[in-house]
């Protein structure tokens, strides 16, 4: 068995596979199928300061090899997370990443401050949710806004800070550099791409929100490209995600420069996907006589 452990910003992960925020709730549902302890970490459902009810349905549309969602950050709020969900998650012997999203800089800061007194292992600042009107992608698509929110949250927390980036930009490396220079410890990417489907019989968009976030295997090549570009542009670790559905995809993402990976939409198809991907990574490394998964990070040999 190969060494699957990775270290990101001083936090030890037993393996590099993390269910992505919004696809795994707080882990409770999937614990019926496997022990959460097997996971490298869990990025929990995006949490706002106050409870959010989310967007009107329909919130889901299928696409070739992918899907759109417009959930709109439905969540019970940070206090509920800290009181009801976090204590349970912290007993699971895996890295817990609090994904946070605020409508403005002040709200992001307040959420981070509330987490400061907890044992949560890392914070993932979501500056890229495409499904909310305020904050979200508005932060993630402007260098100055991304810098400002990162700087403010950085000052509010001693926790390792990951900033989750939007792919809906002209040059993702500019945003990555901007958040790096303001003290981000790592970046994670890609959040969903903006997409739309229309029901040609009713002429209505399938999603009530009209547009939504596009994810699933279809976005994988875009994600690999952006991870590769970003890993070459920053010195901080990159956590890669976007359409990963197998161990081989995870290996490819890591060769592009990701130190760890998050998996999302594939879990809807195969609820065992996170643990399957861990064992598939191990099988690949054994087959290739590679001792540690760390040895493959960023090893792509560009033409």
């Amino acid at each position, binding site marked *: 068995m190969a060494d699957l452990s990775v270290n990101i910003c001083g936090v030890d992960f037993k393996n590099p596979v993390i269910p992505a925020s919004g*696809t795994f709730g707080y882990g409770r549902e999937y614990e019926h199928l496997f022990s959460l302890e097997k996971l490298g970490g869990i990025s929990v459902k995006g949490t706002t300061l106050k409870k959010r009810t989310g967007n009107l349905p329909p919130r889901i549309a299928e696409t070739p090899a992918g899907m759109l969602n417009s959930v709109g950050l439905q969540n019970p709020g940070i206090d509920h997370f800290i009181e009801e969900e976090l204590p349970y998650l912290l007993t699971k012997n895996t890295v817990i990443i609090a994904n946070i999203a605020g409508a403005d800089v002040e709200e992001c800061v307040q959420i981070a401050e509330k987490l400061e007194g907890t044992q949560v292992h890392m914070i993932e600042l979501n500056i890229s949710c495409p499904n909310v009107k305020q904050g979200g992608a508005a932060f993630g698509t402007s260098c100055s806004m991304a810098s400002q929110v990162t700087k403010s949250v950085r000052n509010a927390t001693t926790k390792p800070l990951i900033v989750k980036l939007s792919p809906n930009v002209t040059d993702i490396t500019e945003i990555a550099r901007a958040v790096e220079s303001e003290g981000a410890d790592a970046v994670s990417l890609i959040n969903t791409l903006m997409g739309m489907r229309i029901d040609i019989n009713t002429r209505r968009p399938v999603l009530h929100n009209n547009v939504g976030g596009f994810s699933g295997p279809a976005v994988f090549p875009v994600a690999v490209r952006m991870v590769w570009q970003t890993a070459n542009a920053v010195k901080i670790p990159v956590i890669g995600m976007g359409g990963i559905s197998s161990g081989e995809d995870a290996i490819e993402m890591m060769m592009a420069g990701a130190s760890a990976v998050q998996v999302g939409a594939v*879990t809807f*198809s195969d609820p065992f996907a996170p643990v399957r991907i861990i064992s598939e990574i191990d099988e690949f490394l054994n087959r290739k006589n590679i001792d540690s998964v760390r040895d493959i990070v960023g090893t792509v040999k560009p033409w």
Partner: protein
Amino acid sequence: MNFVQGKFFITEKTAVAKQIYSFRIECPEVVKIACAGQFVHIKADGFLLRRPISICGLDREKGLLRIVFEVRGKGTDKLSQLNKGDFMDIIAPLGHGFTVNRDYKKVVLIGGGIGTPPMLPLAEIYGDRATVITGFRNSGAVILQEDFGKTGAETVLCTDDGSAGVHGFVTEPLAEILKKNGADMVYACGPAPMLKKVSEICREKNIPCEISLEERMACGVGACLGCACRIKKNGEEVFAHVCKDGPVFNAEEVLW
């Protein structure tokens, strides 16, 4: 909530109407814990999202699960190409099923079109204490009448065009039956306009009603929050989720 995921053997496949198929799947571990109103989440080869299909039968002795579904798009078309001897990849049982009370003396079951299959397990439980009212577009779309007949339940068949049974919607016989005999509970599954009307009739008569809803769904287990529906709980409007809080809801809670 307890559920399993696995590939289970298909023991029987029949076409029960045009583009409507019945499958029996051998999965004792699911059948043992499943109840009426729950659903199975089926993987269609080549599609990212699973298809949620209501449970139509639970043979606890033989460990057989029955589902009946209509080909509505490419995903269900792919599922319909499975055959006896193949394996079906399912997550089940999922969701919150119907409330069954064995003391009820009179219940009415309403099925509209492809919403009819989840009524069959209830008819099997209540037998001659149930009146089953089913409605279809036309005679070619009628399904499960023999199965309902075998349960001992009284059956009323309606078609929109009068080509079989009573000409008209299920809501007309429902109103008559409730007026004449009342009921301890009404259960319904079908198109949203039908469910809305059924709920209104039951509210007027002050008869409890449970309805099974449908929504575009991703995870099926309550993690992704995709399949939202608006309900009123403790005086507050909230988004519940069809996969975990439903698919069966108290009709009084649902906001249309």
